[in-house]
């Protein structure tokens, strides 16, 4: 009962769900705080945050397109697999879409587990799957023109280790 009240309190703040696909930015520190709260037997928390790079310094913005009907369910399936396989105490995935400028956060994965190896592996598994199996497409709009980011063979290969 107390747990139910706690969860309701979280959802009212709009941050209770373990998968979120949104246009708005998020606060990694707040997500980490929420993640551990209420969870038991956690010794290790790992987070990954993806940021828009601008190596040559000519990127105007990145446009991220996604497949709304599929995105959250596809990520939720990945999270369910990670939680079961590494017995995670808590897990969170947030991915943004829309127009993002250099330096802006794109997405975040956070995992909590009793030990460090499980938390690290689960976060890497989720990143590898998000990269190649979640329906997002990135377009870079730069001074030189616009181009769709191409998938790399290395990203597809990364899935083989799981």
């Amino acid at each position, binding site marked *: 009962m107390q747990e139910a009240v706690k969860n309701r309190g979280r959802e009212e703040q709009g941050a209770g769900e373990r998968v979120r696909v949104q246009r708005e930015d998020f606060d990694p520190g707040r997500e980490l705080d929420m993640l551990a709260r209420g969870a038991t037997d956690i010794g290790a928390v790992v987070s990954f945050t993806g940021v828009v790079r601008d190596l040559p310094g000519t990127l105007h913005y990145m446009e991220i397109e*996604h497949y709304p009907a*599929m995105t959250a369910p596809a990520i939720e399936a990945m999270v369910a697999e990670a939680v079961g396989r590494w017995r995670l105490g808590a897990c969170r995935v947030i991915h943004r879409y829309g127009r993002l400028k250099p330096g802006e956060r794109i997405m975040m994965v956070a995992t909590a587990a009793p030990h460090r190896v499980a938390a690290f592996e689960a976060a890497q598994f989720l990143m590898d799957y*998000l990269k190649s199996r979640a329906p997002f*497409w990135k377009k870079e709009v730069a001074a030189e023109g616009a181009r769709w980011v191409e998938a790399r063979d290395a990203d597809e290969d990364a899935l083989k280790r799981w």
Partner: protein
Amino acid sequence: MIEVVYFAWVRERIGLPRERVETTARTVAELVEELKAREERYALAFSDLSALRVAVDQELTGFDASLAGAREVAFFPPMTGG
């Protein structure tokens, strides 16, 4: 009737994000052949299937997948999330 959805450069080449298609295709591959026969822009978008991915009713699948009972088919390039 089936809802066909396009993303990223597939959407740009075909020139629209989604359309309702009257089809008798039994598989994704047959649907692709029907679409390619329509117009040059479809033929161009579907010219190299190895550069495309497909989802039927929001589940990733292959081009040999059946369309029996399917309501939505989506075509797009390999994903680049994360």
